[in-house]
């Protein structure tokens, strides 16, 4: 355990804040991501999860606090820079272009090329083969990598996005609600790939509002509420019940239960 303590985190946010005009989107949030571990960020709608992702992904810059990548204090200026530093983000909308073939999507933004001068071109063969092979490794056997990615199921698309990030040598994988729109079975498949990515040594940030999914795979849990951090736990410090309770609003839930019980009671009488 002491070894884990002394390791530098791949990504470390300390006391980070972000304002949009006079709206305080994020205040005093700290988070660590280690290689081979999954850090879960939990929060209800409007808790600041998206803002947090955007800071890690380089889409927005933080106003206060520090963002350190492998111990080095950094300010990410663009998604490209974040990618170059090994941070790959898979957004809720998956950042895929539905009408484009799977293989074009897989390599979008980082197309391998061959040839020289005016004949410099994409290595289409390599792209097709790699896409097929990488997806096969994740257990998806696509008959045709030429089909538009929009024709794949939600879970498959999520897996393509994860496979893409892993292939391009991401050190940190940020997943924005990967199971939000999926059924039970597909969620399970996606979580398996998240775990597979972790086992390959990636640090994973898993954003979700489902404590059950988080507890299945998470090593650390950061709870957000209305832009502030209300909890930061390691796995052995917290039970699923406690996590669910905090996530659901803690005392608010008790109040709500109380209120609902009274309503039910009065209805019965």
């Amino acid at each position, binding site marked *: 355990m002491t070894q884990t303590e002394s390791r530098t985190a791949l990504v470390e946010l300390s006391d980070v804040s972000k304002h949009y005009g006079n709206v305080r989107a994020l205040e005093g949030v700290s988070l660590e991501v280690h290689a081979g571990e999954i850090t879960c960020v939990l929060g209800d709608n409007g808790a600041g999860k998206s803002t947090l992702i955007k800071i890690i992904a380089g889409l927005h810059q933080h106003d206060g606090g520090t963002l350190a990548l492998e111990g080095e204090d950094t300010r990410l200026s663009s*998604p490209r820079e974040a990618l170059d530093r090994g941070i790959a*983000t898979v957004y809720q909308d998956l950042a895929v272009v539905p009408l484009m073939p799977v293989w074009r999507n897989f390599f*979008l933004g980082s197309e391998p090329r061959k040839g020289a001068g005016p004949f410099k071109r*994409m290595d289409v063969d390599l792209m097709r083969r790699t896409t097929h092979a990488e997806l096969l490794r994740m257990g998806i056997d696509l008959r045709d990598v030429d089909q538009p990615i929009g024709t794949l199921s939600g879970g498959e698309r999520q897996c393509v996005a994860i496979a893409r990030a892993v292939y391009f040598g991401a050190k940190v994988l940020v997943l924005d609600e990967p199971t939000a729109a999926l059924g039970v079975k597909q969620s399970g498949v996606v979580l398996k790939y998240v775990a597979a990515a972790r086992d390959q040594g990636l640090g994973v940030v898993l954003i979700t509002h489902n404590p059950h999914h988080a507890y299945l795979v998470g090593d650390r849990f950061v709870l957000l509420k209305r832009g502030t951090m209300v909890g930061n736990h390691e796995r052995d410090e917290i039970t699923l019940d406690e996590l669910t309770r905090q996530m659901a609003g803690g005392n608010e839930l008790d109040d709500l239960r109380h209120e609902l019980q009274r309503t039910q009671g009065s209805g019965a009488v």
Partner: protein
Amino acid sequence: MSATEGTVADERILQTSPLRKLLGRPELGSVVGAIAVFVFFAFAADSFLRASSISTVLYASSTIGIMAVPVALLMIGGEFDLSAGVMVTSSALVSSMFSYQMTANVWVGVGVSLLVTLAVGAFNGFMLTRTKLPSFIITLGTFLMLTGMNLGFTKLIDGTVSTKTIADMEGFPSARDVFASTLTIGGVGFKITILWWLALVAVASWILLRTRAGNWIFAVGGNQDAARAVGVPVTKTKIGLYMGVAFGAWIAGQHLLFSYDVVQSGEGVGNELIYIIAAVIGGCLITGGYGSAVGSAVGAFIFGMTSKGIVFAEWNPDWFKFFLGAMLLLATLLNAWVRKRAEATK
């Protein structure tokens, strides 16, 4: 018996039949349409199948096609350019007036015109990416400004609505060879614009299908935010596309100038829609992200066949617009249907 076994073993492969692949091609609808129009006029007009008629049709197609190719690329990239029609005239005017006023070799004017036209394209792209306004508004503004400038500057400099002839100027014969000559093949004259057109289709197809830039064009049109998120230079791609349209306008403009030797400053208004229609008939999705350069060429060819076919059939040319509208509707419906079939979930 063994054949049946083979079928069973390859069951999964059979599901992506060649037919399905063919249906997935964006230009399929337009090819079917082009064949229909060709057969129709082959029967309706006796002279339609003569080599000289085909040459005329190809020439008409090429003048539209030269612009339809870059306009199609731009549409795949998710944008419009309403200034494309008058930009052709602007390009011709700049070339002609610069050479005449400076009494320079016409090639100097041609070069200056290239720079000016590319700058107009870059302006369109820059304004679009900077202001994030719809391209419809931005290029409508450019369209009106160019229309005004074409007339205004021509009247200011030449005193009339057309430019002075540059036919006797140095370099005119060679420039005419490049932009407006006629090549005789088997006793039939073919305009050189057909070559320009085919070359542009080839280059555009190469860019779209085989280069990184092509991947980016599909991506910025299909899902701009996703493209940006994975590191595609969206701004550069869009500005490049507008400059591509400008390049097409330059070629078309020089042809306009050198096939006569004077330019009417009011020309070109309305052509921007023709280019867009050709691209749409050719399978470009109006919302971006889908289409092909070959399709735009087929769209332009349908245009050429219809406009000249009506003349060969000795009908009243007033019917041309009606045919065009019907064709546009049919092609769009067919494309939508084909795409739905091709993308139907397994």
